[in-house]
C-alpha cells in the first residue's frame, strides 16, 4: 500500500501530461467531445489525487518520490509535504472549475484549449512537488509555455498585445532564473534543494556574496511570478484580457511565486543557512506592503470588472508576502489559509465577471452604464464573490484576513502592515460596491461607443456548475475554518522544519544501492571545487 501511494506522489504531474498527450494525438477538431470528456475526467482524477495526497500528507513526514529510484542529490526528487499537498488541492479545484466552465463554449474559441490546460496543470503541480531547483525551472517553463497559449486563447489584438509583453517579460525572468541556478551550482555543486540547504549552511565566508547574490536573483524571479511591485506590470493587462476560464486558473499562478519564495527561502536560505541566513527577511514585508498599496490604487481606478479582479489577485499576493515575510509559524499558517481562500475567491470573481460580460453583450464587463444584466442569479452571486474576495464577514475571507492580521502582530513593521491591509480592504469594498452599483443598478444608456478592439471575440456564457462549485468551496472553507486553519498551521510548522525536510530527502547511503554509484557521487561532490582550478592551468 505504501508502495502504491509512494507512486501516487508523481501522479499530479504524470496524469495531466498523459491526458494532454492523448488529447493532442486525438486532435480537438475531430474528437471534440472525446477531448472534453477526457479533460473533465482528468481534472476529476487530479482532484481525487489531491484529496488522497492531502489526507496522506497530514500523517507527518514528507514523502519523497525519487525519479528512476536515483537517490536524492543525484536524481530528481518530488517531495510531498502538507504545503505542497495544499497547493495541489487548490490548483486541482480551480482547474476543475476552469475546465468545466469552458465547456460552455470558451474552449471552442481556439485550438487545443484542453491540452494546454492540462500542460499548465502539469507545470503547476510539478513546481509544487519538485525538490530540485533546475526541475523547478523546467516546470516553470512548462507552465509558462502553456500559459502563453492559454492567454492567447480566443484571439484578438488586445490578447496578443498583452501576451507579447507577458512572454518577453517572463523570458527575461527565466534567463535570470538560469543565472541564479548557475551561480548556485557553481558555488555549491548541487541543485537539489535539500542538498543546497546542507551546502549553503556549510559554505565558507568567501562564498557569501555569490550565494546571497544568487539567492536574491531567485527572489526577483519568484517576485515576477508573484506579481510583486515593481515587477507586476504584466499582470493587469494579461489577466484582464485573458478569457474568463483562463483568468480563473491564473488566480493560482501568482500564488506559485509566493510558494516558491516560501519554499526556497525557508529550505535553502532560511535561518540555518550560515552566510546566507534570513536572506529574504528584510525584503518581503516592504515589498508586500508596496504591492498591496499599488494594487489598492489600481482597484480604485479600475475601469472594468476584470481589471478589478486582477488587482484583487495582485493585492492578495501582497498580503501573502506580508504574512510570509514574518517567517513564523503563525504568519505562514495564516498566509496559507489566506492563499487557499484568495485563489478560490479570485477565480470565482473572474468567472462571475465572465458571466456578466456574456450577459451584457457589447458593454462587456466594463464599468460603465450599459445593457442591463438580465439573468437574475448573477447579482447575488456577484455579491457573494465580492464579499468573499474583499474579506467581509461572514465568509472565509474575513477569517483569513483576521488570521493574517494576528499572524503579523509580532513582526517588525506590523503597524504598517495592519494599516495597508485594513485600508486596502476598505478601498476594495468601496471599489466592488461601486462596480456592483454600476453594473446592476444603472442600466439603460449604452456607454460612449464600443472601443473593443476589432477581432476580439464576443464573450460567451460558460457552465454555471463551476461557479456553484467555487461558491460551495468558499462556504466549506468558512464552515470548516477550524480544521483548515489547524492544517495550515501544521503545514507552516512543517515548512519551517528544514531539518525534517532535508533528512527526508537525503537518505544516508544504504547497502542495497548499486556499488560505485554512491562512491562516484561522493567523489563528485568532494571534488566539485577541486579539479576546476587545476583545469584552468591545464587549459592555459
Amino acid at each position, binding site marked *: 500500500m505504501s508502495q502504491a501511494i509512494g507512486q501516487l506522489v508523481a501522479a499530479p504531474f504524470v496524469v495531466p501530461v498523459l491526458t494532454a498527450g492523448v488529447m493532442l494525438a486525438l486532435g480537438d477538431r475531430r474528437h471534440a467531445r472525446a477531448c472534453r470528456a477526457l479533460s473533465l475526467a482528468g481534472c476529476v482524477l487530479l482532484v481525487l489525487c489531491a484529496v488522497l495526497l492531502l489526507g496522506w500528507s497530514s500523517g507527518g513526514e514528507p514523502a519523497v518520490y525519487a525519479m528512476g529510484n536515483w537517490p536524492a542529490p543525484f536524481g530528481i526528487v518530488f517531495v510531498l509535504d502538507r504545503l505542497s499537498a495544499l497547493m495541489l488541492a487548490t490548483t486541482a479545484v480551480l482547474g476543475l472549475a476552469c475546465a468545466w466552465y469552458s465547456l460552455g463554449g470558451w474552449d471552442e474559441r481556439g485550438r487545443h484549449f484542453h491540452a494546454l490546460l492540462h500542460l499548465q496543470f502539469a507545470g503547476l503541480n510539478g513546481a509544487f512537488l519538485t525538490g530540485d531547483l*533546475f526541475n523547478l525551472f*523546467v516546470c516553470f*517553463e512548462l507552465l509558462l*509555455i502553456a500559459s*502563453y497559449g492559454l492567454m*492567447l486563447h480566443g484571439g484578438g*489584438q488586445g490578447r*496578443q*498585445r498583452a*501576451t*507579447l*509583453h507577458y*512572454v*518577453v517579460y517572463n*523570458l*527575461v525572468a*527565466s*534567463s535570470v532564473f*538560469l*543565472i541564479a*541556478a*548557475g*551561480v548556485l*551550482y*557553481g558555488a555549491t555543486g548541487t*541543485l537539489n534543494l535539500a542538498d543546497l540547504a546542507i551546502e549553503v549552511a556549510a559554505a565558507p565566508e568567501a562564498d557569501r556574496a555569490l550565494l546571497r547574490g544568487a539567492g536574491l536573483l531567485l527572489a526577483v524571479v519568484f517576485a515576477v511570478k508573484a506579481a510583486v511591485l515593481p515587477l507586476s506590470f504584466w499582470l493587469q493587462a494579461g489577466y484582464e484580457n485573458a478569457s474568463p476560464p483562463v483568468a480563473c486558473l491564473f488566480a493560482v499562478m501568482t500564488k506559485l511565486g509566493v510558494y516558491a519564495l516560501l519554499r526556497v527561502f525557508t529550505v535553502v536560505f532560511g535561518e540555518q543557512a550560515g552566510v546566507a541566513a534570513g536572506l529574504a527577511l528584510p525584503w518581503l514585508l516592504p515589498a508586500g506592503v508596496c504591492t498591496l498599496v499599488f494594487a489598492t490604487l489600481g482597484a480604485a481606478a479600475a475601469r472594468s470588472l476584470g481589471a478589478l479582479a486582477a488587482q484583487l489577485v495582485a493585492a492578495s499576493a501582497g498580503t501573502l508576502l506580508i504574512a510570509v515575510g514574518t517567517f513564523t509559524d503563525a504568519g505562514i499558517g495564516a498566509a496559507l489559509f489566506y492563499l487557499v481562500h484568495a485563489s478560490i475567491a479570485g477565480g470565482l470573481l473572474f468567472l462571475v465577471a465572465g458571466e456578466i460580460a456574456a450577459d451584457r453583450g457589447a458593454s462587456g464587463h466594463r464599468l460603465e452604464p450599459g445593457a442591463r444584466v438580465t439573468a437574475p442569479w448573477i447579482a447575488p452571486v456577484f455579491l457573494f464573490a465580492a464579499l468573499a474576495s474583499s474579506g467581509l464577514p461572514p465568509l472565509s475571507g474575513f477569517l483569513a484576513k483576521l488570521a493574517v492580521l494576528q499572524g503579523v502582530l509580532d513582526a517588525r513593521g506590523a503597524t504598517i502592515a495592519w494599516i495597508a491591509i485594513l485600508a486596502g480592504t476598505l478601498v476594495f469594498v468601496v471599489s466592488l460596491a461601486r462596480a456592483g452599483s454600476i453594473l446592476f443598478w444603472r442600466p439603460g444608456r449604452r456607454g460612449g461607443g464600443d472601443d473593443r478592439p476589432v*477581432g476580439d471575440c464576443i464573450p460567451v456564457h460558460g457552465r454555471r456548475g463551476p461557479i456553484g462549485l467555487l461558491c460551495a468551496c468558499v462556504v466549506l472553507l468558512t464552515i470548516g475554518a477550524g480544521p483548515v486553519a489547524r492544517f495550515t498551521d501544521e503545514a507552516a510548522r512543517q515548512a519551517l522544519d528544514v531539518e525534517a525536510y532535508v533528512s527526508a530527502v537525503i537518505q544516508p547511503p544504504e547497502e542495497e544501492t548499486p556499488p560505485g554509484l554512491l562512491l*562516484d557521487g561522493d*567523489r*563528485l561532490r568532494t*571534488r*566539485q571545487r*577541486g*579539479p*576546476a*582550478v*587545476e*583545469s*584552468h592551468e*591545464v*587549459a*592555459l
Partner: protein
Amino acid sequence: MELLVASGIGVLTAAGVYLLLRASTFPVMLGLTLISYAVNVFLFSMGRLAIGMPPLLREGGDLYADPLPQALVLTAIVISFAMTALVLALAVSLHAGSGSDHVDGPPPGGQP
C-alpha cells in the same frame, strides 16, 4: 580563457539588454536570443572551464569536464529555442493584424 569567456558573456548580455529595450518587436526578439546565448555560455562556465577533458570520473583521473551544466544547457537551449519561435510567431501575427511592429501597437491615429 576566463577573461575571454567572461567578457564574451558580458558583451552578449549588454547587447541583448540594449536590443531588449528597443520599441519594435524584432530587435526585442534578437535581444532575447542574445541574452539566452549569454546565459547558456554562463551556465557552461559554471561547471568550470576545462579543455579536452572527458565528462566522466575515472579511476585515478582527477580532471574531468563537469557533465551536469552541459545537460542543463541542453535543456535551456531547447526551451529558449521554442520560446523564440513563439515570440516570432506572435510578433508576425501582431504585425499582420495591426500593420505595426511597435511593442505597444500602432500609435493612436498616427502612421506606424
